[in-house]
């Protein structure tokens, strides 16, 4: 376990001559450094990282610019162009070693790490830097003596470089574990977990031991010189390669399955959202049908109106309007009919008598007789009158027919008018319905997201097919793996038999066996790290996270679980296992809480005891969540250093009273007079350190409004 005792920086940017003492020990593990923005918080963080890890740990700037170490306002005319930057960190390292008998022994050493760089300033912003090798002194009874081991090696064994962002956490940038692009996030989480769990080391060891085994087999084979043995050795090494390839294929297939599974989930969610709004294709078809209906409606309206208009040339109109005339005419014709004068029967009778040749009185009407000529004269004289009588007879009967027709209300013109107008109304309603459907459908179409549902469905289908293929591939690779492993056992046995039969090769056999045993332990360890340990980190992160946000009812209502997937994604799920998007569904406080929970879980599960130094951990948090994060961090850390602004401290004073073992305040001289009340005793830009804790202020750190802040009291005992 590493504990920082003290740090001293000179000429490191604003830290012209800054000394900070840190709290050690479990009772009050918290060190609070109160500092407002631009007061050196982040500078202290980078300074500590530089002290431990050197130039590689410095921030990278845009455009490839190098990170400047010397103070910005270095006066070359007074102080020269050469700036010496010094960092000195005193720390304790306590380790538990495992004895050969399986017991544990605690060793504690105190060290001082010194790192010095020189920057030679040129014109403008140009500078050259030379960083010396760090010096590591170990405290002994004789004082501090340099250690012989390469300091970098020793430091890395105590606090690995790959974990610098885990132990030295810039609160704003730490969110890179849960924000940023998917690949970037995954990579950071993966690196942090793998490094802290030691997976990188074990995998590297596995690779080297496997190679050693392969080399030993070949060496045995060369020594053995027998064909069978050669063949079996070669076959064995070949099988190892094939097994590795099969495993790699299986892993790749499983990875692809996981990725495709996620893709399908995302596509389905997108499809569901789009379908709720409406299926664009279905709506388009509906629109076309409605347009067809409208056209049919137009035709129906046109046709029904034409039918309607036809009533104005229908004889029924004249019939209805002239009804009184018809009755009167009928009345005039009636007597004629009654008298038998209409229709005329006289002419037909005469014609019939002429044909018969005998008159009704019995006289002959033969051709040439006077009677014949008389009848002809009668016929000629009354022709016209009889034509008229015939017509009158027709009119009489027609009038009766008309009167009959008019007596039936259903046949009347008005009834026909009503019927045909109802048809026009129906046709118009049909057209109107179609128009309304068109309008509604167009509105719905406008609201449907421009999501090609057909394309989405195709993507889902493709991904599902791919998933099936990958599942098959995984099964095949597994089967191949099993087959190869079985074959390997047989070949190994055969080879062992040959080895056994030759005593002189017992050493070679023993070497191979040793390598195999080492490999077996490494393989088993890797499986555990990749499986159980990852799950343990995930569970622990979830527990801490839910503890922290329990105080936020809104977030607590929607968040069910946080976990780390086998692909190293940190995901948060809500009800019904719906995946939440941290950028959208989590507020700032929850995102910070999740990041801190991840870091704390990782350090705990990996049994790594190192300081957690967090710059602005409580930014964007408020109320109870802020307190929950603070308490969780204190509880789970072995040494916790928080760099807090007054805003972050607000409403956590009682917790800080309880846990703080060491405190100080940073103030930037440049903040006078706008924020600092008193003029600093320095004429350069620097961080001033005073021993004020979160409830105090003094002549050095007093800011505007401190005097009226009821939570603060003035210290008068500090030296400026």
């Amino acid at each position: 376990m590493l504990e920082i005792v003290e740090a001293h920086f000179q000429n490191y940017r604003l830290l012209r001559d800054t000394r900070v003492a840190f709290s050690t020990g479990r009772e009050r593990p918290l060190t609070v450094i109160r500092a407002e923005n631009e007061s050196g918080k982040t500078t202290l963080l980078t300074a500590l990282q530089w002290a431990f890890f050197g130039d590689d740990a410095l921030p990278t700037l845009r455009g490839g610019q190098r990170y400047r170490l010397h103070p910005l306002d270095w006066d070359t005319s007074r102080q020269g162009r050469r700036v010496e930057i010094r960092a000195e960190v005193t720390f304790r390292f306590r380790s538990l070693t495992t004895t050969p008998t399986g017991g544990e022994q605690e060793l504690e050493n105190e060290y001082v790490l010194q790192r010095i760089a020189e920057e030679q300033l040129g014109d403008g912003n140009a500078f050259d830097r030379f960083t010396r090798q760090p010096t590591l002194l170990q405290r002994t009874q004789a004082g501090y003596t340099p250690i012989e081991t390469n300091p970098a090696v020793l430091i890395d064994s105590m606090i690995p470089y790959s974990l610098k962002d885990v132990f030295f956490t810039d609160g704003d940038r730490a969110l890179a574990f849960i924000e940023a692009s998917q690949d970037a996030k995954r990579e950071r989480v993966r690196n942090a977990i793998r490094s802290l769990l030691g997976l990188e080391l074990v995998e590297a060891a596995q690779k080297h031991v496997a190679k050693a085994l392969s080399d030993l087999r070949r060496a045995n084979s060369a020594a053995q010189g027998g064909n069978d043995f050669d063949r079996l050795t070669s076959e064995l090494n070949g099988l190892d390669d094939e097994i590795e390839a099969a495993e790699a294929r299986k892993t790749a297939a499983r990875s692809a399955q996981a990725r495709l599974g996620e893709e399908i989930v995302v596509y389905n969610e997108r499809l569901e959202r789009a379908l709720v709004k409406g299926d664009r294709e279905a709506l388009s078809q509906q629109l076309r049908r409605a347009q067809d209906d409208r056209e049919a409606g137009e035709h129906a309206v046109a046709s029904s109106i034409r039918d309607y208009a036809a009533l104005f040339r229908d004889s029924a109109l004249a019939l209805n309007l002239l009804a009184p005339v018809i009755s009167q005419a009928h009345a005039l014709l009636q007597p004629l009919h009654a008298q038998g004068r209409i229709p005329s029967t006289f002419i037909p009778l005469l014609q019939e008598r002429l044909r018969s040749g005998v008159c009704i009185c019995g006289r002959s009407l033969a051709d040439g007789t006077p009677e014949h000529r008389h009848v002809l004269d009668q016929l000629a004289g009354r022709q016209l009158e009889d034509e008229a009588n015939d017509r009158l007879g027709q009119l009489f009967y027609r009038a009766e027919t008309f009167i009959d027709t008019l007596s039936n209300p259903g046949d009347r013109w008005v009834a026909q008018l009503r019927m045909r107008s109802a048809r026009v109304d129906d046709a118009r309603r049909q057209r109107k319905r179609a128009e309304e459907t068109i309008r509604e459908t167009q509105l719905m179409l406008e609201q449907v997201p421009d999501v090609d549902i057909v394309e989405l469905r195709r993507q889902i289908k493709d991904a599902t097919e791919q998933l099936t293929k990958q599942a098959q591939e995984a099964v095949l690779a597994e089967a191949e793996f099993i087959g190869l492993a079985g074959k390997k056992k047989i070949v190994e046995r055969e080879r062992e038999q040959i080895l056994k039969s030759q005593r002189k090769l017992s050493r070679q056999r023993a070497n191979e066996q040793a390598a195999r045993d080492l490999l077996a332990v490494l393989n088993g360890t890797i499986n555990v790290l990749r499986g159980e340990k990852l799950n343990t980190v995930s569970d622990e992160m979830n527990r801490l996270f839910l503890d922290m946000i329990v105080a936020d009812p809104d977030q607590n209502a929607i968040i069910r679980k946080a976990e780390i997937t086998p692909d190293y994604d940190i995901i948060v799920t809500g009800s019904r296992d719906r995946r939440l998007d941290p950028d959208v569904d989590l507020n700032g406080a929850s995102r910070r809480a999740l990041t801190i929970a991840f870091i704390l879980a990782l350090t705990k599960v990996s049994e790594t005891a190192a300081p957690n130094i967090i710059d602005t951990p409580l930014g964007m948090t408020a109320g109870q969540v802020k307190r929950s994060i603070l308490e969780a961090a204190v509880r789970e850390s072995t040494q916790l250093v928080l760099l807090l602004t007054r805003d972050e401290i607000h409403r956590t004073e009682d917790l800080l009273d309880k846990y703080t073992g060491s405190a100080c305040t940073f103030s930037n001289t440049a903040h006078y007079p706008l924020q600092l009340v008193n003029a600093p005793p320095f004429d350069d830009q620097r961080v001033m350190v005073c021993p004020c804790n979160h409830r105090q202020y003094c002549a050095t750190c007093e800011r505007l409004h401190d005097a009226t802040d009821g939570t603060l009291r003035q210290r008068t005992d500090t030296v400026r």
Partner: protein
Amino acid sequence: MTLKDYNPFTQLELRLPDAYRDEVTKYSRTFADTGSSSKAEDSPFERYVDLWMASICVAVAEGREVVVPTATKTWRFEYGSRLQGQTAWIDLLQLLAITHFQDPLVVADARKVIDLANVFAATGLPVVLQMLTDGHDRPLWNLSMRMMELILTVLPDPDDSYETEPPI
């Protein structure tokens, strides 16, 4: 000769007052596209003879005094041959003449019947034209409303529950 071939007015002239010639053209679809429904709403009468016959009937139904000043200029829009096949109309014109002249034998004088018809047409035409514009709707619907009202005065509905509002 069958009834449907009977047309004593073939050579005779069907006439309407010249003063209304433009309107007669406007409200008839004789030279227009008879297939268009919007034309039908603006020009309810398919042919001039339809308007002529309607004018006669409206004049009779309204009981208008049939007096047409001799100075009234008229225009022959058709010959009586146009009435070929319009059996009912021919019957009704003759019945009208019988009633007007109180003489059944007037049917023998086709010219007299048509002259009477032309006079009634001249009397009724302004009324029909008025019906076409009387209202806020298009001519077909205005005409329907007025025509229905007129017919119901001539032939009241036996069932009072019938609506008297125009259909549209």
